[in-house]
């Protein structure tokens, strides 16, 4: 039996360090795949013994791309442990920062990390600017930068750049590969919007700067948010700051509605074959988020919580984060060891003892039958799950939420595609755009909620009644859940005598990029690659499309911790 092994390492245009090995059959179709996290930092171990009020700052540094999400999960888990309920304004400001992150991160993903899988920059050289302008006006009538003159300038920029011979980040890529199907005009339009989106992403994120002081890595606070509100002060959140937030949200609505979504649907219409590729597991999980009545009331989340199994949209199963039997992590194919006899552990009992058994670097390939990743394999009731935009949109859709039904139905109608098209690489990429549309309008609604509170004289942003550690119980455990742009994120903390005794995070990319478990079940990336035909194994465009559709974040995925006081084992390199 002839087998070809394709190794992609580094997988680029992602956060962190990911390696994919794919085994092809004689027809060039992927029949097995391995997803390997090739980095480990041990941040949760570093957290042990520290002040739980500091944990948000440490965990925020798990990732600078999805910055804020770990800070949010962290303050929530500490507040949960200590019995703190934050003021409504703090929840609203957190929602505003959360939704801002979604919109900004999804646009960056689409244009700067994912687009080059579908857009051929070199082909853009052949585009006719007048025809491009006509296309752009048809695709998005309300986007103003669509004249022949504008596209003539962009075409000249691309031409000169390509002809300079210094192609920088665009060199040695897969231009001209048969999998690229856009006409030159669509390619030129996409290149122009790559540059427009790059300029805009630094604007929308100023919302984080207003409330959190900086981005990346804005500030959070256990008990609320650190930015005080005082409409009579020039040193607090006041009308000038609020006006800036509102203006940035209005611009964001324009970008999502008139740039991102039209581009997404236009490009998708050329790649409908990808609505039948890359579906993968078919099991979806969402913790849900954007609370309207505090984090304790998931029924009032804008993103609902739930589980979908085997692509069955007729049923949304409940998910109970307090049940320690539901979420567990396995290490059968991960470079760790557990105490003898234990196959899987809940995060509160989690053990992380690294035990590298892979080949000594430099190496050519890993062994799919052995341990092969720094990521553990989290499972829900023993099942491998996909998390992320598609999971959220499907759970919202299957839960019967009208706003989800509306955006999904409209998009499927415009692409003339059935609902089954969602279970695919294209569906994953489309879901990210659809939830951005929901998110950007919710963003304005959250802003209006804040204004309504301020009108009613409600200004409080923090509850400090349990700030002082002397008010804490001797021992407490808590969890904090959120939906990072890349999917379900959970933090678990165990506080003893005012210090962190144990801390664990299970992050979206650990779910999606996980290696196989003890039963041999693939993780979501691996499963999604199976059955994908490759035109040219030396140019892994197909692998990149599906992997990028998940928006990998490997710094997040390879976090990890050890139990109380445990020292790390010596790692043997053979």
């Amino acid at each position, binding site marked *: 039996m002839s087998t070809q092994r394709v*190794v992609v390492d580094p997988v680029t245009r992602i*956060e962190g360090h990911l390696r994919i090995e794919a085994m092809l059959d004689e027809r060039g179709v992927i029949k097995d795949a391995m997803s390997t996290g090739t980095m480990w930092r041990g941040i949760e171990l570093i957290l042990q013994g520290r*002040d739980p009020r500091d944990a948000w700052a440490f965990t925020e540094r798990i990732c600078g*791309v999805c910055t804020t999400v770990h800070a949010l999960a962290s303050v929530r888990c500490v507040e949960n442990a200590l019995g703190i309920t934050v003021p409504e304004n703090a929840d609203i400001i957190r929602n505003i920062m959360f939704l801002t992150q979604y919109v900004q991160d999804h646009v960056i993903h689409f244009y700067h990390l994912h687009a080059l899988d579908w857009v051929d920059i070199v082909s853009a050289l052949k585009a006719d600017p007048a025809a491009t302008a006509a296309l752009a006006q048809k695709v998005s009538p309300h986007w103003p930068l669509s004249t022949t003159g504008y596209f003539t300038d962009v075409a000249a920029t691309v031409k000169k750049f390509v002809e300079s011979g210094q192609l920088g980040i665009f*060199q*040695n890529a897969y231009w001209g590969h048969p999998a690229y199907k856009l006409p030159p005009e669509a390619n030129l339009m996409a290149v122009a919007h790559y540059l427009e989106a*790059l300029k805009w992403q630094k604007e929308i994120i100023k919302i984080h700067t207003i409330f959190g002081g900086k981005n990346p890595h804005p500030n959070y606070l256990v008990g*609320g948010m650190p930015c005080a509100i005082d409409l009579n002060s020039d040193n*607090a959140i006041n009308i000038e700051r609020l006006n800036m937030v509102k203006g940035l949200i209005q611009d964001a609505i324009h970008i999502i509605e008139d740039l991102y979504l039209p581009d997404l649907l236009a490009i998708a219409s050329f790649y409908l074959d990808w609505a039948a590729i890359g579906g993968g597991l078919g099991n979806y999980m969402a913790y849900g988020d954007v609370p309207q009545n505090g984090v304790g009331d998931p029924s009032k989340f804008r993103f609902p919580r739930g589980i979908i199994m085997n692509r069955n949209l007729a049923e949304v199963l409940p998910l109970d984060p307090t049940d320690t039997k539901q979420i567990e992590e396995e290490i059968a194919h991960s470079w760790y060891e557990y105490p003898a006899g234990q196959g899987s552990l809940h995060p509160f009992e989690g053990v992380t003892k690294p035990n590298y058994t892979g080949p000594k*670097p430099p190496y050519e390939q890993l062994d799919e039958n052995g341990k092969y990743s720094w990521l553990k394999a989290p499972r829900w009731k023993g099942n491998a799950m996909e998390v992320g935009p598609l999971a959220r949109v499907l759970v919202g859709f299957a839960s019967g939420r009208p706003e989800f039904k509306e955006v999904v139905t409209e998009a499927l109608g415009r692409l003339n595609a059935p609902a089954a098209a969602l279970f695919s690489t294209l569906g994953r990429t489309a879901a990210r755009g659809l939830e951005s549309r929901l998110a950007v309008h919710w963003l304005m609604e959250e802003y209006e909620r804040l204004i309504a509170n301020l009108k009613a004289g409600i200004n409080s942003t923090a509850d400090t009644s349990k700030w002082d550690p002397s008010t804490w119980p001797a021992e407490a455990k808590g969890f904090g859940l959120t939906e990072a742009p890349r999917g379900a994120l959970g933090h678990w903390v165990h506080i003893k005598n005012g210090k962190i005794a144990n801390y664990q995070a299970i992050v979206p990319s650990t779910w999606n990029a996980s290696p196989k478990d003890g039963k041999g079940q693939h993780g979501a990336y691996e499963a999604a690659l199976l059955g994908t035909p490759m035109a040219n194994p030396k140019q892994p465009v197909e692998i990149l499309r599906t992997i990028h559709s998940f928006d990998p974040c490997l710094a997040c995925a390879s976090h990890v911790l050890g139990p109380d006081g445990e020292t790390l084992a010596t790692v043997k390199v053979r």
Partner: protein
Amino acid sequence: MNEAKARPTTYDVLREHGVDRRSFLKFCTVMAAAMGLDASAVGKVVEALEKKPRIPVIWLHGLECTCCSESFIRSSHPIAQDVVLNMISLDYDDTLQAAAGFQVEEIRKRIMKEYPGGYILAVEGNAPTKDGGIYCTVGGQTFLDILKETAEQAMAVVAWGSCASNGCVQAAHPNPTGAQPVHKLIHGKPVINVPGCPPIGEVMTGVITYILTFGRLPDLDRVGRPKMFYAQRLHDKCLRRGFFDAGQFVEAWDDDGARRGWCLYKMGCRGPSTYNSCATFKWNNGVSWPIGSGHGCIGCSEANFWDNGPFYQRLSTIPVPGVESTPDQIGKVAAIAAGVGVAAHFGSFLVKRALDRRKEVAESGDRESRGES
């Protein structure tokens, strides 16, 4: 600058991109202003960009979180697009690169071969040194090896952010992977430390454009940081400093003082021991900065800042000046407490604190303690 191989100059490239001379001169003026240079320096900027080629840059990622790359693309003057398309040739950067896998590694090797001594190595993150460096590999090779190999022929090394400059979060106690900053691993090369978690976007593009403009490295302080961005304490330039001097402090989150924007010193602010440009440039094109938005500085550009916590514990036990104190009285109090004169301010405390910390930290040999005042 090494002129080993003829490359188009920055001006050539701008001209090829359809930028006329008038626009080019305007661009030089704006860039000079962005770097805080006076009008007489504009001529030098023009000259540099007319003669210097677009320099290849290899941007490596080790143990990190990519916040530095994100900050880089937040830069507003110049914007990232200008830097990447017009000023440098960003030949290798796995976060933005179109190609993947062996095609990318090919590029890195080709640049090293074709431009010996003629490329800049930018490093985001640091290298795990424990257990043979197995905690970070790229293309099957340890990051530690890649870093050393790529640095060998580099003209200069730019250490982006606190990870590359001083270790940052993964090097915090107990540093499970033996993460080491770049200057501990690379010797015999100029290393520019650009600390911060992350550094401000305009600081990052400022460092790059300084090198391109003047054809030399910026002046560095004794820990390798560009003086132009890291010479002053936040505390000395803080908008809330007046409240410190007047003894007006935030006592609890969201109290009256917090709403009026009083000093955050009692809430643990590290402004008095942090050297960075946040108080001057602020963040995200001057919108705000941590202290401006109500949270104390956590000192993210200082070495070992993660182990100088907890963050909400105030820096010093010296008596805080009362509401009635004058600046002169405050000076006296500080002088008595420190015992070494007014200039020491909180200095001696910091030295002691750093020394105490060294005893606690297991791998103290790998750490730096700096008692700055």
